[in-house]
């Protein structure tokens, strides 16, 4: 029990100040890889930007659907809200596409389906990159 508590105490670290981690995380959301650029990890930032941007672009070119928050039964609500959160994870890419009126109805077909998955995954990958930027800013990673 004592050993278990000691291990937990060793793992638990104090949260870093807000002004340290918030700018890279916010910039990382707005511009994929931007947080890494701010933290002087330009190589990694460029790779993240290229991956997320190209994935989003392929999703648009395949006419993938962007989710909107809709309620219904539990599964419908979960899919639509989850998909919406993942879609807005791409930050400026999502906002610019929405601003230019990109709106694709949910259509049958494997290409459209792949497009939808590409758009969602681009957002999820950017969220992963934001978490990475947070860990770098907090000094938990190099």
């Amino acid at each position: 029990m004592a050993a278990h508590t000691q291990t937990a105490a060793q793992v638990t670290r104090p949260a870093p100040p807000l002004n340290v981690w918030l700018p890279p995380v916010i910039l990382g959301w707005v511009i994929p890889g931007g947080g890494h650029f701010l933290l002087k990890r330009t190589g990694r930032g460029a790779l993240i930007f290229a991956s997320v941007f190209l994935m989003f672009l392929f999703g648009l070119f395949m006419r993938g659907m962007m989710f909107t928050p809709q309620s219904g039964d539990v599964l419908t609500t979960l899919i639509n809200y989850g998909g919406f959160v993942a879609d807005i994870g791409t930050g400026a890419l999502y906002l610019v596409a929405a601003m230019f009126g990109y709106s694709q109805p949910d259509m049958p077909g494997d290409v459209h389906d792949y497009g939808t998955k590409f758009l969602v995954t681009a957002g999820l990958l950017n969220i992963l990159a934001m978490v990475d930027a947070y860990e770098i800013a907090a000094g938990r990673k190099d």
Partner: protein
Amino acid sequence: MPKITLSHFEAAFLFSLFTSVVMGITSKRTDKERLDYGVYCFACFLIALFGIAWLMRLGHG
């Protein structure tokens, strides 16, 4: 805006590539570990892609 039509393989290949790059970057601590993990993820995606494709092919007879 241009419209592209990718085959299943092309779409899955690109998906695997982009996902592996980001997972490699965000998951490990040194550049060597990142590269190794990215290549490992990509290989796993492709093995799963071909494995499941063959399973479906054999399952359909």
